[in-house]
Structures are given as structure tokens and as C-alpha cells.
């Protein structure tokens, strides 16, 4: 009977397997061409922008909750961004530590009689502060909303400029990140949102809020995440962007046209993955309104973030991501196969549903079936090993192509040793780590399906981010 089931299901696995790998390899190809074009026109763009001063002014919004230890250096770094005109809005989301007091003292903040607008509903704002040292710095003090989305929305309400850049207060930005990420808005007025590449900061040296030296982390889990981020950004997002089917702009660094952000209702405070949910909703809204729009991705590394280095933190993150993915797709399910939805509705959403959301089920099932069938003698042991080898080799191939793309474009890791190390990690991650993440993603899926609320957990910071 087992043999019969195996024979019936093997073609299902094969089709799934071909589908996911053809999908990723196609994204890879699109990304390769787009990346080359981007890199080759970057110089031209740089020289054109150097003296033009045509950049659109930007409001940078950074929510902070109990960031007492790092808030001063983070804000100082954000105040040093290279951009002609921007304002910085820090949202103190009801911190219970002395985050606000530290900012008041360091930046000489004074309560300011701002005519605050409630364009997007949020928890009550207790006060708006303005710095007497930095005219472009304001701090919104509000009651805790229990999530980042509520804090960002309060910041958006206070924005003055046409573009809003949402950043994590604890992320490290490249000094020229705003100039790079604003490029799609200047090149195409239909652009409503852009995101840049987020990289792993663990292992890098940080000084005065900026990266001083780029290196690989010592921790194995963080190293694997370097590869994962390269895969996710360099060919995941770079592959979807040219066909206007990008479904996520990272919450750590994203720029939005403010009127579009407000029109769709801002970030959803009930969403677990508020960054993805917003982008999927933007697609849904714009398509429903028959608007011509673009959501673009800039491959330049603009933001560096702290990756979890312990299994507990990593698990929590991955469970949350999978939960958020399910929720974002479900909340915007009318986008699926929408007659006017184009590549988003007919390619990206089905791909995410089938391979990203439901993928862990089939992947886990695949491992179990091969192992059980091998043990039970339903297939020859060498055939079972062959199928496992196939899965692993394709995994290694995808990771290797991400490293290749990195080398082809930005080659941020200067030492040859780092590249060799990345290849080693690309191989090693397939033995244990990948299976572990499949298991966590399954848990995230179950959590979403069971409707359980997500508990926010405090992540332990890696040492590499302290200066």
C-alpha cells in the first residue's frame, strides 16, 4: 500500500520540485540582467544627481520602544545621512525606560505646539517635541500601541514631505542610502514604494552609527543568514521588481509616497508582518482603483540589521515571518487571479502561496516520504539518497547563484576568504539548518491557521552592533 501511495504522489513531488526550482531560477535570470543594468547605469545616475538637487524631500520615520541603550547613537547617525532635504521623526512608542528622557536631554527637545493630524488612526499622541539643536528633528511621544505599525502610522501623520522613509531605529543605514533608494521615484513618477537591500550587520564594525568595516559574522547562524539575505534580496526581490510584482519591502528600510501610504490606510496594526501586508494591500488597492503604479526595488545595500544569533530568537523570527506571510496573503486574497492584476495576481501571489507559504508542508513531506520509503524498502536506498542529493544540490545551486550575484554587483565582502566562507556556508546550510527552518515555518503556518495571536518576544542583540 505504501508503495502504491508513493507511486501516486511521486509525480506531485516532481511537479512541485520542478515548479519551485524553475521559479527561482527564472527569478535568478531576471535579477542577473536587472542587476547588471542597474550597476552599469549607476555611475550615470550618480553624475546626473551630483549637482541637480532635484531629489524629493523625505521624512524619515523611526519608531523606538525601550531603546534607551542605543537611541542616542541611532538618532545621531540618522541625523548625518547625506541627503539635501530631510526631516527625522522619532516615535517614542510609550517606552517604559528612559528613551524619551535621554533624547530630551541629548537633543535639547522642547514640547512643540504642533497641529497634529490624525490622518491614520493611532493610539493617542501625548506630545510632539522639537529639537533646538537640530531643526529637522522631531520626536512624537505616544501611548504604546503594542506594535511597530501603530508607531509608524503616528510618525506618518506628522510627516511634512512627499516621501516617507520608514526605518528601524536600531538598523544601520549607509550614509547615502536615501539618495540611492529615492532613485526609482525620480526615474518613474508612477512609483509609490521602494525598498533597498538589507544586509546582516553581525561581524561588521560600527562607529558613530555607521559601518566602518564590513565582515562576516563569527556565529554560524548569523553566517547562514548572510546567505539567506543575499538570496532573498539579490534574486528574490530583484527578480520580482522588474515585472512590478514585488510583494515585500523590508520594514527595516522602505520609502513610500506619502499620499499613497495614507490612501491605503497606513500600516495595519493587527498584521504580524506589517511590511509585507502593506505592500500586498497597496497592490490590491491600486489594481482595484485601476491605477498605473510601480513598486520598485533598489539592489544597493542601504541598510544593515542585527540578525538573531541564538536558535530561540531565530525560531521566533521565522515563526513570525511565516505567520505574517499567511496573514498578508489571506487578508488580501482578492488579489489572487484578479482579472486586472497582471504579474502580481497571476504570478507573484500564486508563487508565494504555493512555494513560500505551503512550501514547508511539501518540503517536510518530501523528506519524510523519501526517508520512510527508503527504510521500508519501497524505493531502493540509492534512489532515496539520489532524491535527497537532488534536493540538496539544487539548494546549494540557488545559494551559490546568490553569492555569484553579489560578486557580480556590489562585492561588499572585500576578502577572498569571505567569499570562500560564503560558499562553504552555502553548502553547510543544507545539512540541518534548512530542515530546521522548514520545521519552524511549519509551526508558523500552524500558528496562523489556528488563529493564535503572536506573542512579541524581546530578541537578544548581537555584540557586533554595539560600538
Amino acid at each position: 500500500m505504501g508503495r502504491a501511495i508513493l507511486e501516486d504522489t511521486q509525480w506531485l513531488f516532481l511537479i512541485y520540485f520542478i515548479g519551485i526550482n524553475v521559479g527561482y531560477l527564472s527569478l535568478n535570470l531576471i535579477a542577473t540582467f536587472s542587476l547588471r543594468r542597474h550597476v552599469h547605469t549607476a555611475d550615470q545616475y550618480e553624475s546626473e544627481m551630483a549637482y541637480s538637487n532635484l531629489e524629493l524631500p523625505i521624512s524619515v520615520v523611526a519608531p523606538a520602544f525601550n531603546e534607551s541603550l542605543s537611541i542616542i547613537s541611532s538618532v545621531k547617525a540618522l541625523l548625518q545621512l547625506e541627503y539635501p532635504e530631510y526631516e527625522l521623526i522619532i516615535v517614542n512608542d510609550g517606552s517604559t525606560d528612559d528613551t524619551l528622557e535621554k533624547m530630551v536631554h541629548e537633543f535639547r527637545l522642547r514640547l512643540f505646539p504642533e497641529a497634529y493630524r490624525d490622518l491614520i488612526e493611532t493610539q493617542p499622541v501625548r506630545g510632539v517635541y522639537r529639537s533646538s539643536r537640530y531643526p529637522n528633528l522631531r520626536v512624537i511621544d505616544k501611548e504604546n500601541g503594542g506594535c511597530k505599525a501603530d508607531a509608524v502610522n503616528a510618525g506618518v501623520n506628522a510627516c511634512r514631505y512627499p516621501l516617507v522613509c520608514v526605518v528601524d531605529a536600531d538598523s544601520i543605514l549607509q550614509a547615502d542610502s536615501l539618495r540611492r533608494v529615492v532613485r526609482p521615484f525620480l526615474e518613474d513618477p508612477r512609483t509609490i514604494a521602494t525598498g533597498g537591500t538589507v544586509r546582516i550587520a553581525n561581524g561588521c564594525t560600527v562607529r558613530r552609527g555607521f559601518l566602518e568595516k564590513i565582515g562576516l559574522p563569527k556565529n554560524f547562524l548569523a553566517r547562514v543568514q548572510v546567505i539567506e539575505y543575499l538570496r532573498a534580496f539579490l534574486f528574490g526581490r530583484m527578480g520580482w521588481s522588474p515585472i512590478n510584482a514585488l510583494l515585500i519591502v523590508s520594514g527595516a528600510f522602505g520609502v513610500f509616497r506619502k499620499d499613497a501610504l495614507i490612501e491605503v490606510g497606513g500600516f495595519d496594526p493587527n498584521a504580524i508582518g506589517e511590511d509585507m501586508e502593506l505592500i500586498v494591500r497597496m497592490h490590491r488597492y491600486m489594481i482595484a482603483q485601476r491605477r498605473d503604479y510601480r513598486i520598485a526595488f533598489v539592489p544597493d545595500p542601504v541598510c544593515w540589521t542585527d540578525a538573531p544569533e541564538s536558535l530561540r530568537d531565530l525560531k521566533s523570527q521565522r515563526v513570525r515571518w511565516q505567520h505574517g506571510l499567511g496573514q498578508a496573503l489571506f487578508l488580501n486574497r482578492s488579489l489572487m487571479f484578479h482579472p486586472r492584476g497582471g504579474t502580481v495576481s497571476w504570478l507573484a501571489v500564486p508563487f508565494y502561496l504555493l512555494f513560500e507559504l505551503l512550501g514547508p508542508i511539501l518540503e517536510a513531506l518530501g523528506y519524510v516520504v523519501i526517508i520512510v520509503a527508503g527504510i521500508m524498502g519501497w524505493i531502493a536506498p540509492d534512489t532515496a539518497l539520489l532524491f535527497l542529493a537532488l534536493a540538496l544540490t539544487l539548494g546549494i545551486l540557488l545559494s551559490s547563484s546568490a553569492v555569484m550575484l553579489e560578486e557580480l554587483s556590489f562585492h561588499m565582502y572585500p576578502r577572498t576568504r569571505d567569499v570562500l566562507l560564503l560558499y562553504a556556508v552555502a553548502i553547510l546550510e543544507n545539512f540541518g539548518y534548512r530542515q530546521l527552518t522548514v520545521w519552524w515555518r511549519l509551526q508558523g503556518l500552524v500558528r496562523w491557521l489556528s488563529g493564535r495571536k503572536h506573542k512579541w518576544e524581546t530578541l537578544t542583540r548581537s555584540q557586533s552592533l554595539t560600538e
Partner: protein
Amino acid sequence: MQPGSDLLATIALWVTVVAGITTLLLFAGTMLLRYATNRHERRRRSVIGTWRSTFAAALLSAAAARDCELPRIARWVRPYLLEEWNRVRSLVDGESAANLAALAERLGLEDYARQRLHRHQLHARLLAIQTLGYLGCSAEWDYLHDELLGHANTALSATAALALIQIDPGRGIAEVMPEVIQRADWPRAAVHRILRAAGPALITQPLCHAVVTGDAGTAVRMLRFAELAQTERIDQLVEIVLREREEPVVLAAALRASRNQAGVPRLAQLAGHADWYVRVQAAKLLGRVGGDRDLAVLEQLLADGEWWVRYRAAQSIVQLPFMGPNSLRRLKERQRDRYAADMMQQAMAEVGLA
């Protein structure tokens, strides 16, 4: 094993082998790329180091550009030299630019750029077009005009347009301006550079014509560059647009482009326009050019339903030259509308008058 399983196993085997070989090739490719990148960097640094003093001397003196001793130019040096020459050239103008052109002639950069113009790589072609534009090379006029100006690639076409203007502004503007008007894909910065290179005398007429006769999108796009045209004609243009066009986006763009209230007799009327973004621009303009008669209009806008209109009106009131601190406080106190009073308080606080 059943035949189906055999087939499956065979497919699996072959896919594994192909994937394995591809991975190895990728690894080898990455290593080669790393080697090439490192070599490229080394060479670039070496060329910059060797040629720095020559470029510096040429920038300062025409005689040096003509007569200075040149380091030997190996074949591999030329692409780096071309890149560095363009970088330096983009930083200077006037006499230094002429000196650099003389140096380029001695280095044979024009011929080299003409060769690279027909290359496949985008980067090489862009750099070649840029060089030919800087050098005013009319020998490639036809190719730039016929093949590149209307090219689908945004970077190629926009760079070619700039080069045509740099080579012969008078002849170029007639060819380039229709593209400037049509090509919505050209970045604002690129169009700005093209129009600035052509100069106000050449661009004013076609720009005004496009604004008056083009559709709303064209008019708005061209009005963004009005600052580059002749100032006196812009006042007339704004007046015509505000008189003859009705589209709110065009009206708002015209108000944004205006520098002088003399050209805006409809300003008070536009301050009551149904679309808020027209009222915002009216409020801003009143702040720049308004007189004491306009205070009543601004006070009315202070109680507008739209936050931005109130904000700009308050900012405009605060910056009116005849409004001292006491007048502002009195104005704030006489506001019956709470939102108007709040906004005045904010605008005053912004300039330290709270």
C-alpha cells in the same frame, strides 16, 4: 522499481549532475570575477595615481595641457583613462574644460570614444557618448541623432540628447526638444541637465509652447523646468496658463513656477479653488509675493479644511515682511476657528515666536 520510478530516478540523476556542475561553474566564475574585480581596482588606482599630476597640470594651464610630457599609454590603460578624464571633466567648466579637451586630443580619447560608441556594453557606450558630448565631436552627430536619440533605453537616449546639445546647441535643440517633451521616461535630473546645457535663450520658446499646447501631463512636467527659462517669459507663461487652462494640476504647477504676483492676477480667486493642492500653491505664493491686501485671503485659508493649506497659509503669514511679532499674536488671538489658531501657534513656534 516501476517504469515511472525509473524515469523519475533518471531525471533526478541528470538534474543532480547538471545542478552540481552548474554550482561548480558558478564557484569558478565567482572566483574569476573576484580576480577580475581586484585586478580592475588595482589598475584603476594605478592609472589615477600615474595621471593625477598630468590632469592637475592640464586643469591649471593651457600650455601644460598642450605640451606636458605624457606617461606611456598601454592598451589596458585607455578605458581607465577615459573614465578618469570624464570624472575630472564633470567637475569643471570654462577654461579648465577647454584645457582638458586639449589634453584629450593629445591622448586620442575622441577616437577611442568613437570606437567604444559601437560596443555592446551599455556602460562603455554611455561613457563614450558622454566623452563625445564633452569634446563636441560633430563627426558622430548622425549616429547620435539617428540611432541613439530615439533609443528605447532611457540612459542611452537621454545621454545622447545631452551630447547633441553639447556638440551644437543651436542645431541640437530642434532635435532634442521634441524628445524632451515626449519622453516621460527620462529622469528629471537628466532633462534638467539637458535644458541647462542648452541655456535659457534656446529652451524658452519650445518650453512655453509645450506648456501652453501640451496635455496636462506635459504641461506639468515642463513647468518643473520653468526656472531654467528666461524669467520675464515665465511670468507671461504663468499668466497665460492661469488664464487659459483649467486643469487643477496645471494650475498648481504654474503657481509653483511663478516668482512674481504681477503675472498672477487670479491669485485671490485661485486661493478659493475647489482642489486643495491649488489652494496650497496659492497660499505659498502669497507668502512669497503677497502684500497687505492679501492678508485677508491668507487668513481665510488659515481656516481651510485641508491641513496643508492651513499650514502653508500660516507659514506665509509669518513670513510676510510687514507682520511683526505683535501683529502675529493679535492675528492668532482673533481666530475663531480652533484649527486656524493651532496652526498659527505652530507656525509662530517654528520661528521662535510661541
